[in-house]
C-alpha cells in the first residue's frame, strides 16, 4: 500500500519535483523463513487451547486439556506402554516404507530408461495409483497372512506408486547433454546409469520420498486400526472407541512427531546429498 501510494505521488508530482530517491518496489516474493516461527505457532496454539479450556470459553467436551494429554503421555512412557506401541509401528513403517521405496525407485528407473517398460507399465501404474490401498488390506491378509506380512505389504504398496511416478519423472528430467557426454567418453552403460542418471534424478526422487513416506504413515495407522494388538493405530482406535480424548490426542501427537521426524530426516539427507545444487 505504502509503495503504491508513493508511486502515484511521484507520478503526480513529477513536473516540479526536485531530486528525490527512487521508491523501492522490489521487495516480497522471497519466502525466507525464521527457524523458530514453526515452534512458536505450535506453542501459541497449545497455550491458547489450554487457557481457553481452563477459563471455560472453550467447552471441556470439545478438546482435552493439553496438560492432561502431556500427563497421559508421561504415563505411557513410565509404564513402558509407549515402546510396546511405538516399536511395532516404527518397524512396520521402516520395513514397509523401505520395501516400497526401493521397489518404486527400481521400477521408476526401468520405466525411465526403457521404452518398452514404459509403454507396458505406465498405464498399469496410472491404474493402481488412485486405488485407496487400504481397500486392498483384506486381499493382502489372504496373501500374506494376518500378521506383519500384510501390514508390510500394504505400506510398501502405498509407498511404491508415488515413488515410481516421482522416479521416472526425475529420470526423464536428467540433462540429456550429460548422458551424451558420458557416451562420448565411452562410459559403460552401467557407469552412465549409476554415475549420471541416478545422481541426476536424486532431487526428484527425494521429493517423491516425502510424499511416499507421508502416505506410508497414513497407511500404517489404517492397517493397525483394522487389525493389530499393538501399534499407534491400535492405541488410537482403542482410545477413540472409549472416547478417551487424552489418550487419543497422545496417539495423534506421536504420529505428528513421527511425521516431523521423517520430514526432517529427508531434509537432512537432501542437504547432504544435494549440496551440489545451485
Amino acid at each position, binding site marked *: 500500500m505504502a509503495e503504491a501510494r508513493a508511486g502515484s505521488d511521484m507520478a503526480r508530482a513529477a513536473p516540479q519535483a526536485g531530486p528525490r530517491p527512487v521508491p523501492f518496489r522490489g521487495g516480497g516474493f522471497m519466502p525466507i523463513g525464521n527457524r523458530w516461527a514453526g515452534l512458536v505457532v505450535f506453542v501459541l496454539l497449545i497455550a491458547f487451547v489450554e487457557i481457553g479450556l481452563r477459563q471455560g470459553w472453550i467447552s471441556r467436551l470439545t478438546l482435552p486439556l493439553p496438560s492432561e494429554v502431556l500427563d497421559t503421555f508421561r504415563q505411557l512412557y513410565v509404564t513402558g506402554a509407549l515402546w510396546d506401541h511405538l516399536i511395532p509401528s516404527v518397524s512396520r513403517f521402516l520395513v514397509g516404507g523401505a520395501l516400497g521405496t526401493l521397489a518404486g525407485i527400481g521400477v521408476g528407473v526401468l520405466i525411465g530408461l526403457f521404452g518398452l517398460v514404459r509403454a507396458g507399465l505406465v498405464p498399469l501404474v496410472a491404474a493402481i495409483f488412485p486405488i485407496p490401498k487400504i481397500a486392498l488390506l483384506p486381499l493382502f491378509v489372504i496373501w500374506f497372512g494376518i500378521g506383519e506380512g500384510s501390514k508390510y505389504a500394504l505400506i510398501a504398496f502405498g509407498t511404491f506408486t508415488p515413488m515410481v511416478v516421482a522416479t521416472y519423472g526425475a529420470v526423464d528430467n536428467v540433462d540429456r*547433454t550429460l548422458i551424451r*557426454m558420458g557416451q562420448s567418453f*565411452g562410459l*559403460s552403460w552401467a557407469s552412465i546409469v549409476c*554415475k549420471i542418471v541416478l*545422481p*541426476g534424478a536424486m532431487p526428484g526422487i527425494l521429493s517423491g520420498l516425502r510424499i511416499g513416506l507421508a502416505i506410508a504413515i497414513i497407511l500404517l495407522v489404517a492397517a493397525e486400526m483394522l487389525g493389530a494388538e499393538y501399534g499407534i493405530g491400535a492405541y488410537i482406535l482403542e482410545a477413540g472407541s472409549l472416547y478417551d480424548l487424552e489418550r487419543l490426542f497422545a496417539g495423534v501427537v506421536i504420529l505428528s512427531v513421527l511425521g516431523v521426524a521423517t520430514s526432517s530426516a529427508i531434509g537432512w539427507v537432501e542437504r547432504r546429498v*544435494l549440496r551440489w*545444487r*545451485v
Partner: protein
Amino acid sequence: MDLRIDGLSHAYGDTQVLDDVSLDIPAGRIVCVVGPSGCGKSTLLRMIGGLERPSAGAVLQVGSPPPGSLNPLTFVFQDFALLPWRSVAGNVSLVLEDHAIADRAARIADVLARTRLSDFAEALPKQLSGGMKQRVAIARALAVDPAVMLMDEPLSALDAQTRDLLMEDLIDLWQRERFTAVYVTHNLAEAVRLGHRVVVLSRRPGRIREVIEIDAPLGTRGAMDDVQAHLWGLMRDEARAADAELMDG
C-alpha cells in the same frame, strides 16, 4: 591418426541438413568449421564423434590412434557438460574410472596442472565461473589422451574477455602438444585465430563452400581482418536468410 569424411549426407525427415560433405582432418592441425546457424555444423561434429549416424557416407579413421589413448574422439561441449554433483577432480576422474589405469590420481593431477586448475580440484562446478568450467571440460578431455578433440562452440557460452583468455590458453596448449581438433564455431575471429584450415559450410543443406588454408603460425597471428572479411563475404547473405527464417517444428 587422421580423419577422413567421405561423402557425408544427412536428413532429418524431409529436411536435408548435410549434403555430400567430404573433408580431411590431418593429425596435429586444427580444422575450424564455420557457417550460418542451422547449417549442420554441430550435426557434422556429432557424426564425426559417433554420436549420430549419417544417412549416407562415412567418417573414416586413417591410421591407428596413438597407443595409450583411452578415447580417441573426445568432445568439448558448448555448455561444458560437467556433472554438478562432482568436484573438478571428480569430473576428470569420471572419464578414467571405466579404464583400468594404475596412476589415475597422478593423471588427474597432471591434467589439472596443465589447465592451471590444481588449486580448484575440490571445488564444485557451481562455484566456478564459465571460463573455469570450460577449462575443467578441456582438462577432462585431455585426461583421456584424445587423438582428435571435437570442440562444439566451446567458447560461445562465455563473455568476450573470458573467451579471449581461453583462446590464448588453447593456442598455448596447441603449441605445446600439437593436438588435432575439429573446432565448430560461428565466430569468425575464433576461426581465423585457431584454424590451420577453415571450412565454410553453406546454409541448409550444409555443403562445403570453400576451404581456406591459413599458413601463419598460431602464436603470431593478429586479427587477420582480410581473411575475416573474406569469410564474412561468403556467409553474409546466408546468415541474413537464416536470421529471417521461422523455426519449423
